[in-house]
């Protein structure tokens, strides 16, 4: 099969991958440049811009907020999403079909519309504090991923194992934690990682849900770029790319990277 690929196609693919990787390499180089403006290739090497991130209080604050929101939103989405995914698979016959459609629905709603609507109805009309509104927005953003990924791994779980445990006298809750959950472990890890990275990188939902002293890192980056064109943003970008590398390493360790291609 392999030798049948036309050389032109192979050449084209190499160009596409250069196109995909080039800009990220450029960001990396620009972050190390010893100049006050963004440039590539870097002129002189310095780690000053990395230090600069933590000297700007807005960055310190938004990094903390982004991490808090990502952890909390992912945790809440898993806590409510796992039982829902379990119910949708285990009691499929007893539950109406529209219930599973309900969890696909968020895909039809553009993220920016969700963000704006939460600002309007939840933050302003219902006077919910902005941090809580932001947390609600991110939970809703990642919930569909959690339900879908865990549903997919539950779909291949043989529920007769669970029934066997229950009929042998194991209480239902204990059975769930000792029999069902360990069997969908990889699904839970995948859902966690996908949800976390989605939340950390989100712009469209967070955009509207910022208030005095509360904002997320991507929103802060957008605000900074409007005023300054120094390598600070490049170094923040490098930090975010390192996070991506860490995430991919975890996936590789636990699930194998081919998992991501599915």
């Amino acid at each position: 099969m392999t030798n049948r690929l036309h050389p032109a196609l192979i050449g084209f693919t190499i160009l596409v991958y250069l196109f995909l990787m080039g800009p990220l390499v450029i960001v990396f180089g620009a972050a190390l440049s010893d100049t006050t403006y963004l440039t590539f290739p870097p002129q002189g090497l310095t780690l000053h811009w990395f230090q600069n991130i933590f000297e700007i209080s807005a960055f310190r604050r938004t990094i903390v907020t982004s991490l808090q929101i990502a952890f909390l939103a992912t945790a809440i989405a898993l806590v409510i999403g796992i039982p829902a995914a379990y119910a949708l698979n285990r009691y499929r016959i007893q539950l109406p079909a529209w219930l599973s459609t309900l969890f696909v629905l968020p895909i039809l709603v553009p993220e920016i519309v969700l963000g704006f609507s939460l600002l309007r109805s939840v933050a302003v009309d219902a006077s919910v504090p902005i941090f809580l509104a932001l947390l609600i927005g991110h939970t809703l953003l990642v919930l569909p991923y959690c339900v879908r990924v865990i549903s997919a791994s539950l779909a291949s779980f043989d529920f007769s194992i669970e029934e066997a445990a229950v009929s042998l006298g194991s209480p239902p809750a204990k059975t769930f934690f000792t029999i069902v959950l360990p069997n969908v472990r990889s699904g839970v890890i995948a859902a966690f990682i996908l949800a976390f990275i989605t939340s950390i990188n989100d712009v469209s939902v967070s955009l509207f849900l910022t208030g005095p002293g509360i904002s997320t890192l991507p929103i802060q980056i957008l605000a900074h770029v409007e005023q300054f064109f120094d390598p600070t943003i490049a170094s923040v970008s490098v930090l975010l790319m390192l996070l991506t590398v860490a995430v991919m390493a975890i996936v590789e360790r636990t699930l194998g990277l081919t998992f991501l291609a599915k």
Partner: protein
Amino acid sequence: MQVRNALKRFAGWGLSTPATLAVVLFLIVPVAITIASTFAEDGGVLAPYVAFFSSGFRRAVLWRTLEISLATTAISVVVGFLTAYVVSRSPGRIKSLLIIAAVFPLLTGVVVRSFAWLIILGRNGILNNFLVWIGVTDQPFAMLYTQWSVVVAMVYLFVPLMVLTLVGVLENIPDDVVQASASLGASPFATFRQVIFPLAVPGLIVGAVLVFTGSFTSYATPQLLGGERQMVMGTLMYQRAMVAFDWVGASTIATIMVAVTVAVVLIMTRTARRLNPMAT
């Protein structure tokens, strides 16, 4: 038996209630309020829409957004499909390397990936410096804040998604079918055109829908690379809501976005189902 079934239904409802409530309370209700509010204005049911479409500026924004989204989708589909074809036919080791190289940008945020193009396309950016250096021009081109710069960055954003979606689709095409075509005398190109491509069409449509709806409702990329000069639906909506405090205007844009997304998804998934040659 009846009691047991009722009990099961009760358990099923109980376990899915928190997530269901979250979706209904914090997604369906707020979005429904946003949409409904545009039909409850003084001056007629459709007044906000009449206002939207009678403004030449807003019509231009809608038109520009459609143009950018369509161009992005068309380029991403072609580039993504050819690349995915090569990836799916590559030997094991190279294939996993190519997949990793597509996953990495996908997991890197939209802001970081759009920002990279700011460094490349800027007035003193790499591309301009390069063009001046090789003598193509002695004056840097104004590449940033053009429709073209937004499209390039968006293609960059969506090609990995397209590649990964289509690699999955192409891997699912049974090898028997391809071999049968070859053994019946079809040339590799004929096999590609008459067997592989038609089988990949439903996947292409799914990918195209993701790219189109994603670009139609995007904010960060057009904001960074298009700025005020290339306003699109996303940036106009933000401006209406947060700068002009015109909530009716912002809600009208939100409703148009939802309508376009729902229409595209419904029409295209139906088309994909009809075009699927494997369906019986």
